[in-house]
C-alpha cells in the first residue's frame, strides 16, 4: 500500500495569510504538526511509502519530514501545476502509483481516525474508487482489492476540511476534548486529558486546569492560570498573572503580564479571534511577542563584505557622480521617485529614491554605464538597509503582502542577481535566478556577482 497526498496551494493559502512563517502542512494541531497526523494515518493504513504532491513550495515540509525514516515510511515529494486534476497527478506519478494499491488523499483535509482501529486490512479489502468526499476534497483508493467486499456503510474514519481559522480552532478543541486518545499526541501524559512536554517550568502559584496540552520549553509564571481547553505550544512564556482559557498559543510566543486570552489563537505577535477571523498584530512587545531565534553568524560577515564593497564603489563613483549629477539634473534627464519598499523584516518598510536616467546623449550614457543611478542607494548598504547584491527591492503593495517563504530568501539590494546573469529581467525568470542565488551564494561570490552586474549594466 502507498499513499499519495495531493494538496493545492489554493486550498491552504488562507492559512498562510493568517499564520505567516509556517507552512500550512506544518501548522500544529494540538502541538502536533498537521502533516504528522496524515503520516500516522498513512502508516496505520498499511502504507510503506507516502508521496506529497503540491503546486506550492514544499521546502520546509521536506526539511521537516525528510525521507520519513523517522516514522519508518518512505516519504517523497512531487510537484504539479495548479490546473492539474487528480488523473493528471496520478499520471505524473505513474511510477509511484504503479503495481500497488494507492490511497489518494486530495485536499487540505484532516482525517479523523482512531489509532486503535484496524486500518491496514480494511484498506486492502476495500474496493477501488472514492471512499469519502467532502466539499473540499476526498479520499479514494486505486488498484484491485484482494477480497471482494462492498464499501461498508460507515467507515472508521471521517473527513474534516480545513478551510477557515474557525474550523482549525474547532478541530483543535474537538481533539482536545474528545479525541486525545485517538491520536499520538506529543508530550508526557499520566492522565488521559493532560499532556506536558519536556523542560516545562510551572511556578508553584500557577494553576493548570485540564484538559490541556503544554509543549516543550514552556514557562508559566507566578499566579498565571491555564484554564481548561488550552493548547500551549513549544517555547512559550506565559508571564505573571495572566489567564489563558480555551485558547491556542502557537509555539515561540511570549504572553505578557496581567493579560486575559480567552477563546483566541495567539501566534507570535498575532492575536486571532477564530470566531470572526479578525486578527491583529500587536505592536507592544510587552503584550505579545514572537520569540525569534538569533540570526546566523554568516549574516554578519556578509554585511561587512557588502559594506566594504559599497564603500569601495562610493569612493570610485563619487567624482563622476559629483560631475555628472548636476549637469544631468539641469538637463532634466535625472528623474527621481521616492517609493516604499519591503525590507527583510516582515512589517518593516524602507523608503528608497528610484533614479532613472533618460538615455540620450553621451553624458547620460556614461552615467548609466557607471551605474550612477544607483549611487545614492549605496549609502543604504552602509546603514544595513540594503544589501549590495541580492533581490530587486519589491515595492510595498498593501494588497499583496510578502509571503513568508518569499521573505525567507528575500534580501533587497542595490544590484540584483538577475542583473548579473544574462537572463531576461522579467517576472518569474527574475525570481528564479534570485531564489537560486539566495541559496547558492556566499559573501565572496557576492563580490564577483556585483562585478558581473556592473559589467552587464554597461551593455
Amino acid at each position, binding site marked *: 500500500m502507498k499513499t499519495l497526498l495531493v494538496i493545492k496551494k489554493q486550498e491552504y493559502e488562507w492559512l498562510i495569510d493568517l499564520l505567516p512563517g509556517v507552512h500550512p502542512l506544518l501548522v500544529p494541531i494540538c502541538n502536533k504538526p498537521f502533516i504528522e497526523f496524515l503520516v500516522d494515518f498513512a502508516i496505520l493504513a498499511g502504507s510503506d511509502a507516502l508521496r506529497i504532491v503540491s503546486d506550492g513550495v514544499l521546502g520546509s515540509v521536506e526539511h521537516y519530514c525528510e525521507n520519513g525514516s523517522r516514522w519508518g515510511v518512505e516519504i517523497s515529494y512531487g510537484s504539479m501545476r495548479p490546473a492539474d486534476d487528480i488523473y493528471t497527478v496520478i499520471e505524473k506519478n505513474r511510477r509511484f502509483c504503479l503495481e500497488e494499491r494507492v490511497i489518494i488523499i486530495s485536499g487540505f483535509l484532516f482525517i479523523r481516525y482512531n489509532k486503535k482501529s484496524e486500518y491496514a486490512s480494511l484498506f486492502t479489502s476495500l474496493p477501488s474508487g472514492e471512499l469519502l468526499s467532502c466539499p473540499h476534497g476526498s479520499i479514494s483508493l486505486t488498484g484491485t482489492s484482494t477480497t471482494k467486499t462492498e464499501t461498508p456503510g460507515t467507515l472508521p474514519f471521517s473527513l474534516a476540511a480545513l478551510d477557515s481559522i474557525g474550523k482549525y480552532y474547532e478541530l483543535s478543541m474537538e481533539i482536545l476534548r474528545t479525541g486525545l486518545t485517538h491520536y499520538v499526541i506529543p508530550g508526557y501524559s499520566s492522565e488521559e486529558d493532560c499532556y506536558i512536554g519536556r523542560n516545562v517550568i510551572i511556578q508553584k502559584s500557577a494553576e493548570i486546569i485540564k484538559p490541556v496540552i503544554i509543549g516543550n520549553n514552556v514557562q508559566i509564571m507566578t499566579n498565571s492560570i491555564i484554564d481548561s481547553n488550552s493548547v500551549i505550544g513549544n517555547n512559550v512564556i506565559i508571564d505573571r498573572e495572566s489567564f489563558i482559557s480555551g485558547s491556542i498559543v502557537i509555539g515561540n510566543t511570549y504572553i505578557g503580564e*496581567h*493579560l*486575559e*486570552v*480567552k477563546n*483566541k489563537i495567539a501566534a507570535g505577535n498575532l*492575536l486571532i*479571534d477564530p470566531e*470572526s477571523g*479578525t486578527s*491583529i498584530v*500587536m*505592536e*507592544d512587545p*510587552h*503584550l*505579545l511577542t514572537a520569540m525569534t531565534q538569533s540570526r546566523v553568524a554568516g549574516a554578519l560577515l556578509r554585511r561587512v563584505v557588502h559594506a566594504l564593497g559599497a564603500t569601495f564603489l562610493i569612493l570610485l563613483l563619487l567624482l563622476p557622480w559629483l560631475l555628472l549629477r548636476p549637469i544631468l539634473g539641469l538637463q532634466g534627464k535625472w528623474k527621481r521617485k521616492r517609493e516604499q519598499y519591503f525590507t527583510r523584516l516582515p512589517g518593516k518598510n524602507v523608503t528608497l529614491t528610484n533614479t532613472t536616467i533618460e538615455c540620450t546623449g553621451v553624458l547620460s550614457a556614461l552615467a548609466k554605464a557607471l551605474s550612477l543611478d544607483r549611487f545614492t542607494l549605496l549609502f543604504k548598504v552602509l546603514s544595513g538597509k540594503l544589501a549590495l547584491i541580492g533581490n530587486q527591492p519589491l515595492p510595498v503593495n498593501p494588497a499583496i503582502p510578502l509571503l513568508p517563504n518569499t521573505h525567507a530568501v528575500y534580501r533587497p539590494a542595490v544590484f540584483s542577481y538577475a542583473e548579473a546573469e544574462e537572463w531576461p529581467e522579467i517576472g518569474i525568470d527574475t525570481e528564479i535566478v534570485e531564489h537560486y542565488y539566495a541559496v547558492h551564494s556566499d559573501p565572496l561570490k557576492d563580490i564577483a556577482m556585483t562585478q558581473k552586474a556592473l559589467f552587464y549594466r554597461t551593455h
Partner: protein
Amino acid sequence: MIFHLDTSTTQPLGVVLLKKRVDANNSSELQKAFAQWLQQTSNFVFDCTKLDFIDSSGLGAIVSCLRKALEHQGDVKLAALGPKVAMVFELTKAKKLFSVFSNSSEAIQSFRTVSPK
C-alpha cells in the same frame, strides 16, 4: 480626534470621536486635550467607530481619562468598539473598567436614563 458637547441630555456630555490610531505617538495629545474638555464636563462618550488600532500607551491614555472623569464624579463610556480594538481591550482586561455600547447614541442615551450624581 473630534470633540463636541452634546446638550441633548440634562447635563452637557462630551462626545469624542477617536480616529484611526491611538498609540504612543498621539496618546499624550489625547490626555492633554482631555484635561481641557474636563473643564466643560465630566461625562464622556468615546466613539470608536473610526478607530482602527490601539496600543498599550493608547489604552493607558484612555484608562487615565476614565480615572480623571471618575475623580470628577463623571464617567467615560465607550461606543462602537471595532473587532480589533475590542480584542486589545479584552486581552488587557481594560474592557471590564468601562461601560461599552454598540453605538454612540446608545451610549449617550445611557447618560440620560441614569443621571449621574
